[in-house]
């Protein structure tokens, strides 16, 4: 039997009209913004299934742009996200896909940073405002953003995971869940580490300096 917190039932506080099509969409895009880890100049949102069919009536489009701007699902600026993004010089467009997707409420966010670097992030809104991130730059992942989460970009070679977990031990941070994903042997890989505790920035910076780690970011729970 699934466990519920009081505020899963009486909550979340959110901008309407739909927890899955509005609140969940904003959360997905806010997590994507964190993953990109630089100022954003352009976003293409590719929408699948129910997202593709009903996104305008549910304000999914405004919620996605709001998330890219870093707004939470309960931010009253959410309905005005288009104007605010334009003021900040962020370009955005929506594409409806008829391809199959892992869940009816799925979006792929192709995000170009100010540096010109492109990231592609795919996630699903699975109900009640909860989300699941499924793919980062072609690598399959799976995390919810409900925990303090550290995500690395690294090279798939021996010792890297041990070096990262040693830093967690040094900082006395307990690892709740941990998974490693890769393109192919020796290629680029991603580590997703979820913790119940706060991961200090200092720990992240130390991890970034490990040989073979290309980048590390922290996503705070929402």
């Amino acid at each position: 039997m699934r466990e519920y917190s009081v505020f899963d039932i009486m909550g979340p506080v959110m901008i309407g009209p739909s927890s899955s099509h509005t609140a969940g969409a904003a959360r997905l895009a806010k997590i994507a913004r964190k993953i990109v880890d630089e100022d954003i100049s352009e976003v293409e949102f590719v929408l699948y299934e129910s997202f593709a069919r009903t996104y305008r009536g549910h304000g999914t489009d405004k919620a996605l742009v709001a998330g890219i701007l870093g707004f939470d699902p309960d931010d009253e600026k959410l309905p005005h996200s288009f104007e605010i993004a334009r003021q900040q010089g962020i370009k955005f467009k929506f594409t409806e896909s008829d391809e199959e997707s892992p869940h009816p409420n799925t979006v792929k966010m192709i995000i170009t940073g100010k540096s010109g670097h492109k990231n592609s992030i795919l996630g699903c809104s699975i109900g009640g405002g909860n989300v699941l991130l499924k793919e980062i730059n072609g690598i399959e992942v799976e995390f919810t953003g409900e925990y303090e989460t550290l995500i690395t970009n690294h090279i798939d070679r021996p010792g890297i995971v041990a070096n990262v977990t040693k830093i967690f031990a040094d900082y006395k941070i307990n690892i709740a869940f941990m998974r490693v994903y890769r393109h192919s042997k020796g290629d680029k890989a991603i580590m997703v580490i979820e913790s119940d505790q706060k991961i200090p920035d200092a720990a992240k910076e130390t991890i970034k300096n490990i040989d073979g780690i290309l980048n590390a970011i922290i996503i705070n729970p929402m």
Partner: protein
Amino acid sequence: MYQFNHGYELLELTKKFNLPISQIVVLAEQEKTGEGLDTIFQKMRNNLKVMKEAINKGLNEDLKSVSGLSGGDAKKLYERIIIGNTLSCETMAKAAASALAVTEVNASMGKIVAAPTAGSSGVIPGALITVARKFGKSDDDMTRALFTATGIGIIIAKNATLSGAEGGCQAEVGSASAMAAAALVELMGGTPEQCLTAASFAIMNLLGLVCDPVAGLVEIPCEKRNALGALNAMICADFAIAGMDSVIPFDEVVEALYKVGKAIPYALRETAEGGLAKTPTGIRLKKEIFEKVERGD
């Protein structure tokens, strides 16, 4: 120590510790999350604040939904109440108008509390805040009653469903109405048994209600059904406080809710493929809305 999965377990806990349902729910939350009692209480108080603000906004502003399909009806009813011309008594009419107000705020991309869902967000604030104001209850009283409502919601979520896509409108507005009914009973000083009886009545009255939103949007008929859910909660709270017996125990009613939900055809579970959504007007409105937004009007 304070965890419960079923209504009978919740009742046993209230007897064992001689506490109302609201207190058991707060203690269970503290036990589960490790958060302080004050923090938990303040979070719920913030929910109450958001609910009150949504009611004020919906009653006083001319709202329009994103689709243009609904809005402004709460204000219309409220104006009738002010002149004193409604057929229902003032409390009933205010509860209905307040429930409508919250759902119209929701549809116009305003701030609400999903209680338990965005689509049923008007029921609990509509019933609770109206009744509390009538009887001069404090914000703390209302906050406690929201925990009572949540206790009922947790049991329904664990043993049935709160999702219209899984169980139809009975699982959303029906559950919200049961949660509100129990909250009203505790607010008015009723016993934990009476809380569960009121919740049972509320579900029994709405059992089988389908989810058939026009154009797939949470507006028609959802907004008016929220008003119905709020009034149903008040009637059922009165039933329980008057000493009526629901005959079928709460846990069995919840099981029936789940089984009926399973039996509701797919077309009538939030897919907009049946019921009012598939009437000639429902089909025409859907076409018009999506053409209109397509043009960017």
